[in-house]
């Protein structure tokens, strides 16, 4: 049997073309960096299993092409993903502005309770910087999304970003589980009645034992 794992989380990287989505993923999955630019064709994915609080979590990370012409293919993968990373390039103003469009894109196509995170990539290139860290933080606060500046080249915050997103998804999962029981707790009237019905069959013996 292949390696076992406890959970499978599907993550997705989106952002403009050339911001370094593939590099981030390459750094995370292979711990390597390639200086040359090869445009992603449509979609690709990499897998890495990480350990979160003693649970093996298999991350299937989808890397999408930023180019417009692949949009129909890439949007098809929004729905299945549990976490989405929005990547922009700190040396490219336009890619930062487009984050808003990407978020709108998520709202239209992805599942409603998807976890999001904004990454400002290429933060090692301080000389060419066009987007300050504060602006990135401001945007993140505006949308209430976590934010971190990364560098795939210097391996800065890449691990941290993926671990944070995976941990957020796991936390959401635990929370959901607690909330799902009792199901449909919204309708209070029904709940009350149901509880009363339930109390009857439990015998006095079992109730006594609780005391």
């Amino acid at each position, binding site marked *: 049997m292949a390696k076992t794992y*406890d959970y499978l989380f599907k993550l997705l990287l989106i952002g403009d073309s050339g911001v370094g989505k593939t590099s981030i993923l390459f750094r995370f999955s292979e711990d390597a960096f390639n200086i040359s630019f090869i445009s992603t064709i*449509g979609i690709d994915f990499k897998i890495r299993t990480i350990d979160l609080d003693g649970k093996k979590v298999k991350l*299937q990370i989808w890397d999408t092409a930023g180019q417009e012409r692949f949009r129909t293919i890439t949007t098809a993968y929004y729905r299945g993903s549990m976490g989405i990373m929005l990547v922009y390039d700190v040396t490219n103003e336009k890619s930062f502005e487009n984050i808003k469009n990407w978020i709108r894109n998520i709202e239209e196509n992805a599942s409603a309770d998807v976890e999001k995170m904004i990454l400002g990539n290429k933060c090692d290139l301080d000389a060419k910087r066009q987007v300050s860290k504060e602006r990135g933080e401001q945007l993140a606060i505006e949308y209430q999304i976590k934010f971190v500046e990364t560098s795939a080249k210097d391996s800065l915050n890449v691990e941290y970003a993926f671990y944070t997103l995976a941990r957020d998804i796991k936390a959401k999962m635990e929370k959901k589980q607690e909330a799902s*029981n009792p*199901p449909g707790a919204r309708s209070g009237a029904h709940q009350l009645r149901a509880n009363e019905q339930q109390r009857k069959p*439990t015998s006095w013996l*079992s109730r006594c034992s*609780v005391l």
Partner: protein
Amino acid sequence: MNYQSKANKYVCPNDRQLSLRAKLRTGWSTARSEPPLTATEREAIAAVVKRAEKVDEVEARRVGRIVARLEGMRRSAQGPAPRSCLLCGETSRLLAPLRTCSICRNTACPKCVIEMPPHRSPIYSREQYMCNLCAETREMWKKSGAWFYKSLPKYILPERKATRRYNDTELARSLQDAGNSSNEGKTDSEPGSPLSVHAPTFSRQPSNTDSRKSIVSSHDTHHDWNETDILSHGVSGLSLHRTESLNQRSVAGLKRTGSKGSAYSIRSIRKEISKPLTQPERPTTIPDAGFGTLEIKLAYDNGTSSLAVTVLRARGLIGMDMTGLSDPFCRLEILPREGTYSNRLRTKTVHKTKNPEFNETLHFFGITESDLAAKSLEIVLFDDDRYGCDEMGSATVSLRDCAKSPIQLRLALSGATGTEPTGPRVLLALCYSTKKRALVVTICRAAELPPRDSNGYSDPFVKLHLDPDPYHKKHKTSIKWRNLNPIWNEEFLFETRPTELSRQNLTLTFWDKDYGKPNDFLGSLVLGASSKGRRLKHWMDCIKFPDHRHEQWHSLTDTQHL
């Protein structure tokens, strides 16, 4: 780009300007024509998709193992009784008092219970317990990803269980392994007999002895399992066991409704246990691997430039209905299409079988020799159903090979590609609440409803009822005015028992509200044990895993059945 240089840009442009703009092919109004994907790009993407499918299969098997484990636990559980443990049947003792599971409200002994993490609010300061069964269900919900997708993702039950419960997966695989060993004459020619499905496969495995052994051995264990299963129903009528017995009973129910030859009552099962080959099909949730094979013959006629496609037969198709049978038909199409003109042909439907003999020749006309080199034939198998057609598998053949001489091919079908329905559809959440003893139906939203009013919109609302329902409860959602993609998120309760549920059908009808004239019909949906494919899976998931919300999209049909 000075087309609006003279014009005020805040004034609506005139027709000439608009047509000029359209020629420029910029702006939001023009559909951008992107360069189509090149062959290498398409190949690269296909390779990735294939890789992803492998990952999905691993995942489906893993989820299958979890599901099987839980089902095993349920089967061995003793059932709720007032003074004994739900799981092990231990009675209450002084030193080991029984605990009450705070989820299913059943009693269980301290060994079969775990302590719940303390609740945040002080109101629930008392210790809370959860029985192992509920804990396991919870764990399954987390591990399978169902917590996110709001319904169980597709899963493949582990080998042994799979062959025990339904042999389709194994059958299809063994068929593919068997390759081109001839199977004429041995196969069941009469549709409608579920029994004969097993028979030919066992005798038709020259190469793969290993899998053959596994089938045979599992076949032997088949009977006693059935017996214990049935016996346990007789002894304890508990809700968890019921979910298992449901299947059986509704099979019996089916018989009553007159589906010929495909169903067996419980009594007859017990009688037939001694005869190995008269096993009834175990009802299925839809298996996901092994979609069977299809045999076709292609012949091209130069003179009339026509292509004759003879669909001979299919083998080992997936089962779609409760009895594990299907009503398959093939839809054939030459791809890529030319313009908007669609050239689709379909075969007749063969009812109640997984091994249909179509023996039907269909002709495509106007196919040139150059077409043969470039085009391919797509065959999609559908399950014919009154309430919409479900895809059962598909195959694509390039036409290049049949240019010279007629060829006969055996194709392995691959899985349904578009699982998400399109067109008029509804997102529906089902949850059987054991606390309320009721089925909670949530109409979340609908999409792409047909417009019925002159303004290009509809004013949709939904009527829903269970059938048969002793309480004769009928519900209605609110009306969403002028909306083709309404969001309701409204919840409705139907008081019923889980045993009843397998005999009941939930009927949803969508209407367009009109004043002064009768409401217009928009579409309908029927869910129940007698429905098929996705709808059946949704219904069975809801029965099998109570107290969880199962959300799923369903397409609407325009047949009105009241």
